[in-house]
């Protein structure tokens, strides 16, 4: 059950703040179903909350409330545009779902016929529903074409210059995202607090970041570690990423920062995906003969396993006696973990002192239609959130939407979901970790306070913070966007 601790300060009682309840957790979800007015029955079933696509022209119910409060609701013109916008929003929603249903049953021709109309009605420079529809239409188009071609793997750039250019684009977009949404800071602050707490009494630490990118998270941790009375004797980070050049650049930056704080720091770059490193190391071939031989020779197999584990630890830079913290943040920009099973196996072997993960509240697998509808809800809320209070022509928001959200949506809608493979994926890492011998570490103390301080800033009104079973959930008006959780081995 949701325990919503009203961690945000209550809104000011003078109603100059037009959004009435920022603490919306008490608001019933049923409120929003009225907007769907029987349009698509299955949609309301899957729906979660306020991220409805078919809201008013600005894409959020609170905006239309805002309008009516300010302009005293007798403005006919305004109501007319709101009604028009609502009906065009509804139409867009209906068309998108129709198209998705066609794709789900492989009726690609009909799906293709629906797309021109959806595109015509949508625009990345319009209202929230129009922008969401634009990117979903683009994703559906890409999916239809890829289905015809029959190739589903994502394009990975082998050439250095291109890989770097692409990474640079993403990093720039993430920085913009950081300034128009608290999501990244939320992830960093809560995880860093949890890590800091877990390191009480420790003098050394080894952090393995499964998707380090530019390592923007770690300077914050360096700071709080450096201000500890009991000094850190060794701080090491293993950064996993797709390009060694980028990793080295990140390492250099972190090095410089650590030096400026007087922290003894070492960086271990690891190119590749964590779940694939095991198989890379062991050179597993899918040759059936090899398998047979191995099966016949159990002894060899167990030695092999030991050797492999040792190799793995070496590659990761793990030293005995050092507490290990594993961290990563979920997204759909590209596949981070590679083989999910291998990743779990690795975590089991590694038994790190703490695992911190930030997960998107979005399914990455399952039926296409289910994934599609859930993503539509999710990104409607997200688009509402980043568009709140910003003019439609804002270039920064457009960059974030086009580079990040658009890319994620394309991956979610693609065959295979964001992992872009047919592999079985872990849906909820928290649950999965629970199954393989880890137990939750509650974030209810300092991490929660940090998060609530962050969200208490005026800039982030509309965002909600909820604590559930020791996890912290960041949401936009009750639709949960991110869940931060921490885990430790149960032995």
């Amino acid at each position: 059950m949701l325990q919503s601790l009203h961690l945000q300060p209550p809104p000011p009682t003078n109603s100059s703040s037009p959004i009435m309840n920022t603490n919306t957790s008490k608001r019933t979800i049923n409120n929003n179903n009225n907007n769907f007015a029987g349009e698509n029955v299955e949609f309301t079933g899957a729906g979660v909350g306020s991220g409805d696509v078919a809201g008013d022209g600005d894409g959020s119910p609170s905006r239309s409330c805002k309008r009516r409060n300010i302009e005293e609701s007798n403005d006919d013109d305004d109501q007319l545009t709101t009604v028009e916008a609502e009906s065009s929003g509804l139409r867009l929603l209906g068309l998108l779902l129709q198209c998705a249903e066609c794709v789900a049953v492989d009726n690609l021709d009909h799906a293709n016929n629906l797309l021109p109309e959806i595109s015509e009605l949508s625009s990345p420079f319009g209202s929230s529903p129009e922008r969401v529809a634009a990117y979903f239409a683009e994703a559906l188009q890409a999916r239809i074409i890829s289905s015809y071609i029959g190739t589903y793997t994502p394009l990975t750039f082998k050439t250095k210059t291109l890989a770097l250019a692409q990474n640079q684009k993403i990093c720039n977009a993430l920085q913009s995202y950081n300034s128009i949404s608290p999501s990244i800071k939320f992830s960093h602050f809560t995880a860093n607090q949890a890590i800091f707490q877990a390191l009480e009494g420790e003098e050394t630490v080894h952090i393995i970041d499964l998707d380090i990118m530019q390592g923007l998270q770690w300077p914050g941790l360096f700071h709080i570690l450096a201000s500890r009375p009991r000094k850190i004797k060794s701080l090491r980070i293993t950064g996993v990423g797709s390009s060694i050049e980028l990793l080295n650049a990140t390492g250099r930056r972190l090095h410089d920062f650590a030096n400026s704080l007087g922290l003894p720091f070492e960086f271990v770059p690891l190119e590749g995906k964590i779940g694939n490193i095991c198989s890379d190391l062991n050179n597993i071939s899918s040759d059936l003969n090899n398998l047979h031989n191995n099966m016949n020779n159990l002894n060899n197999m167990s030695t092999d396993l030991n050797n492999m584990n040792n190799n793995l630890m070496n590659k990761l830079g793990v030293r005995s006696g050092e507490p290990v913290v594993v961290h990563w943040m979920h997204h759909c920009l590209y596949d981070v973990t590679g083989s999910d099973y291998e990743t779990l196996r690795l975590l089991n072997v590694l038994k790190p002192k703490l695992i911190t993960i930030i997960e998107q509240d979005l399914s990455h697998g399952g039926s296409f239609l289910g994934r599609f509808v859930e993503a539509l809800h999710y990104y409607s809320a997200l688009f509402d959130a980043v568009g709140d209070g910003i003019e439609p022509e804002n270039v920064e928001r457009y960059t974030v939407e086009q580079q990040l959200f658009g890319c994620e949506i394309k991956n979610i809608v693609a065959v295979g979901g964001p992992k872009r493979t047919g592999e079985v994926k872990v849906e909820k890492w928290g649950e999965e970790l629970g199954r393989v011998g880890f137990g939750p570490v509650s974030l209810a103390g300092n991490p929660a306070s940090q998060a609530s301080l962050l969200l208490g800033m005026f800039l982030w009104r509309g965002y909600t913070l909820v604590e559930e079973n020791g996890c912290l959930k960041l949401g936009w008006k009750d639709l949960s966007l991110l869940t931060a959780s921490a885990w430790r081995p149960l032995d």
Partner: protein
Amino acid sequence: MTSVDSLYNNTLFIFFTQKSSMERTHLSPYTNHPQTTTKQPISHTYSDPGGGEAGPDNDKWASKLLLECAQSISYKDYGKINHLLWMLNELSSPYGDCDQKLAYYFLQALFCKATESGNRCYKSLISVADKSHCFDSARKLILKFQEVSPWTTFGHVASNGAILEAFDGENKLHIIDISNTLCTQWPTLLEALATRSDDTPSLKLTVVVTSTMARSIMKEITQRMEKFARLMGVPFEFNLINGSNKRLWQLTKEELNVQEGEAIAVNCIGALRRVEVEDRGDVIRLFSSLNPRIVTVVEEEADFTSSRFDFVKCFEECLRYYTLYFEMLEESFTPTSNERLMLERECSRGIVRVLTCDDEQNIDSGDCERREKGNQWCERLKEHFSLVGFSDDVVDDVKALLKRYRTGWSLAHDRTNSNEDSGMMLAWKDEPVVWASAWKP
């Protein structure tokens, strides 16, 4: 254990990709090709297709990939077509940078070509655009475009200048306007007529609307034009004629309301290219039969006609022209402009039509869109007309116009006909883009 896991995962993936391709066997012959159904789960990393740097490594990666794909389609190299379509599909986006946009719109055309669904796709695009077009949005679009770029105003200023000079001393003026610019050309002309030193002449404006898009919104124009003329104090008569492209050359003097004693000007902006190639000669003959004082012709500088039976050549020219156009749009508008988006979407219709629609299949809807270059139009027009050079005054007016816009615009020297003047050429970054000319019988 681990080898079983990865074997399991690999098997899943093979099963996964094969299953979907089996379900697709009812599609076009292209996708039934045996090579496409046995996909190995190799990770499709970008590899140099051989012969140079073609690929996302460089600037202009889109052109290289697109051209290669077009070539592969003409050679029917299915494996390569597949590979390139996949790359383009991964990299393209209608909302990204110029390369990504070009990749997106041309990918659409290549895909239609490969699946032989061009006609259907075009019809669908046209019908959707038809439904959503309204006067307000069309007007807003044209005005915004004119504000940020001289692409259309260039032709207006040149033509108006030539028409006014040809009409000097006349009292009963009749302009037959065959264009789709929503009459944005005429207010300046009306003003010029009103401020002429001698008696204000009367103006009859007969607008022949050919584009399917424009027809539905022209009714609003009538009232506005009449009101404006009243304001200017110019005796004015306005007629609107629906000239579907098939019928254009069949219009008669009566239908066009041509009367004795009128000084006639035929103004043809971006309209000739919308006429089917075989009918263009007849249309020009029609102009001649009206015995006009002057004919002004403005067209975009590209040749999609002489190569219309050669897919790759036509593709190259299309790509060249639309790359210029998209780059011009990107530099002229703000990054988050809805107007620019609408113009880009308009292009997609043209691209699909020119590259994937079978001309012989008699498409009833939409416009032909097969542009010809200035020197090609000259060849056609010379049969009935002779070129009139633009006077220095008009050239000065055009130059003054260009100064009002961002840098990059200039008047190009027409290199084709060395000795004679063959009209005026607007250039963007030294590339000729719009051609304007004036003719007399």
